[in-house]
């Protein structure tokens, strides 16, 4: 089963500054997205039915599918750049 990233960790440190260190709870965002999807489900189903005859709408659905795939594959992406006095860390967990 694919699991989307649940937490994003971002750390940026500039020279002579304490920088920022953020833990972003993405799982709250997914809960919101699920709520929105449930709310608009009838509309989505209607658009899906129309998309059979309208290629533009079909492309939107394909695009949404790819975005979904990219978001799910972000899990475990890690960028860690460390300099003498600068640090940039981005992690999806």
């Amino acid at each position: 089963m694919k699991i989307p990233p649940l937490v994003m960790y971002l750390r940026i440190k500039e020279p002579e500054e304490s920088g920022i260190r953020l833990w972003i709870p993405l799982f709250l965002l997914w809960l919101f997205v699920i709520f929105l999807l449930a709310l608009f489900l009838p509309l989505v189903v209607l658009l899906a039915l129309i998309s059979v005859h309208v290629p533009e709408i079909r492309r939107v659905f394909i695009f949404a599918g790819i975005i979904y795939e990219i978001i799910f594959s972000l899990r475990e992406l890690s960028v860690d750049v460390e300099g003498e006095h600068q640090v940039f860390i981005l992690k999806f967990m």
Partner: protein
Amino acid sequence: MGDERTRILNMLKEGKITVDEAEELLSALEGQGGGKELSALSPDSAKKLKYFHVIVEPESGNGKKDRVNIKIPIAIIRAGVKMTNLLPEDARDKINGAFREKGLGMTLDDIKEENIEDFIEALRDMTIDVEADNKRVKIFCE
């Protein structure tokens, strides 16, 4: 179970798997009580590529702290390839033109979903390990 042990040992003998992989497969086989088919435990499926790594680190004793460690899930590459199918025609032309300008003998049309698995599999054998300017750059997949 005996047959499957023999097949693992033969794969080791033929150099298809390493000693560590053979050990892993044998212990998995013992753990399964031989109930699972060897095909499910083959090194290909056990070692499916998952990440693309870019590592830049100073040579030991250098004293510098500059380092880069990037781990990209291969799944992003797969999704990215699918994304190319949605590019508008004029954008595709521009990208193909840029490929030609840079001397790359390929177009976006050559990157297809059915080819991507071969491409990713080819990455398995790719390891770049360069030492220059007191830094070591490693690019590999695991």
